[in-house]
């Protein structure tokens, strides 16, 4: 028995795509099929930051003992992109195709600190612009905070997946991490206040000082998401968090929060300006 997941048209970072992904993840979790076909024949375009969720979907299939088949037009732009993005090498044993711009899709082992350092170093090495030392440090801290957040909320059954892209002409980087865990609202409602709804729970988690593991063994936490928002605001970038039934967007120093289809896990996507002016601004404004 097989289950076909159709990917039609263009896959960008928007609510309708997140809803579709939520449905697809729920379908994978519920299906009895032993073969899941990811059909990209009618897919025209796929955003690099969605590769982390795609990696997560494939991982869920694998960990449920399901065979995964990709149906994709040979030599099409989408096939070429997936190959460059590392999807084939990570999940289908292809040889790694070197690419200067792709932050390859990976399932991450967040318990291995040396591995994480090396993974972030590789992201920084791919930068198409010469990053100042300060810029390197700021991006390193930002990515590390995303990983730390994934580790805190996730209890991920199917791994933590990352992927992204440097856009040389735009001097931007888009990067996402998808953990296949219980989700931020569920984690807060379960551990902090069972009377909260998902929106209240999510907003609680965004505040500095709030963490489900606050003061665990005397260690304060809860800086990560607040620092990320601060960085995104000063950088002029954007951050999207998809978690359970919440879609949260931070852009132009404003919050937009909407309800979407519910599913497991959390995806944090950041798009940052990696030119000298935007990165350098972060430190200067904050130090005055």
């Amino acid at each position, binding site marked *: 028995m097989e289950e076909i997941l159709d990917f039609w048209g263009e896959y960008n970072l928007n609510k309708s795509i997140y809803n579709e992904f939520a449905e697809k993840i729920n379908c994978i979790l519920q299906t009895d099929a032993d073969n899941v076909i990811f059909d990209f024949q009618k897919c025209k375009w796929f955003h690099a930051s969605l590769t982390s969720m795609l990696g997560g979907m494939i991982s869920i299939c694998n960990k449920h003992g399901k065979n995964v088949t990709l149906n994709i037009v040979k030599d099409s732009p989408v096939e070429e992109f997936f190959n460059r993005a590392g999807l084939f090498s990570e999940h289908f044993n292809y040889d790694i195709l070197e690419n200067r711009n792709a932050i390859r899709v990976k399932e991450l082992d967040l318990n291995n*600190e040396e591995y*994480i*350092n090396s993974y972030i170093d590789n992201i920084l090495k791919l930068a198409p612009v010469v990053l100042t*030392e*300060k810029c*390197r*440090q*700021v991006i*390193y*801290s930002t990515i*590390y*905070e995303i990983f*730390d957040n994934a580790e805190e909320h996730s209890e991920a059954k199917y791994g933590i997946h990352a992927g992204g892209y440097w856009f040389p002409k735009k001097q931007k980087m888009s990067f996402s991490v998808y953990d296949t865990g219980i989700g931020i609202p569920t984690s807060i409602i379960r551990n902090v206040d069972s009377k909260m709804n998902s929106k209240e729970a999510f907003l609680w988690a965004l505040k*500095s*000082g709030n963490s489900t593991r*606050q*003061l665990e063994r*005397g*260690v*304060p*936490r*809860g*800086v*990560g998401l*607040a*620092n990320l928002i*601060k960085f995104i605001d000063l950088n002029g970038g954007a951050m999207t968090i998809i978690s359970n039934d919440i879609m949260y967007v931070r852009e132009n120093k404003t919050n937009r929060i909407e309800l979407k289809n519910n599913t497991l896990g959390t995806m944090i996507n950041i798009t940052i300006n990696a030119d000298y002016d935007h990165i350098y601004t972060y*430190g200067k404004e*904050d*130090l005055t």
Partner: protein
Amino acid sequence: MMIQLKSFTNDAASRTKGLLLKTKLEQAINEERNISVDFDGIDKFASPFFNNSFSALGIQYGFRTIEKIELLNISDNGKLVFDSSIENAKFLTDHNDQKKEIEDITNSALNEED
């Protein structure tokens, strides 16, 4: 007492390395020595490191004790991450909901000393 971070870590990011520093700092605090921490050669910073070292000790021993520690050769970004971690920990000590938990932690630390 001077603690050279580079002698035991290449980063100031992970909680494991933060805990290593915490042990060294705690020993120096208990010996009531003047403490300096040298970040020379460290260019990777993230909050778990500071949460598990300076901030955790700030909650335990008081932030005045922690603020006496001299930070040497720390980058601007490192200082930003340090400051946000300390601010967060201070916020927690003023947060009513968390006070009981903090008192429990402080009491258990004092009991351990006894």
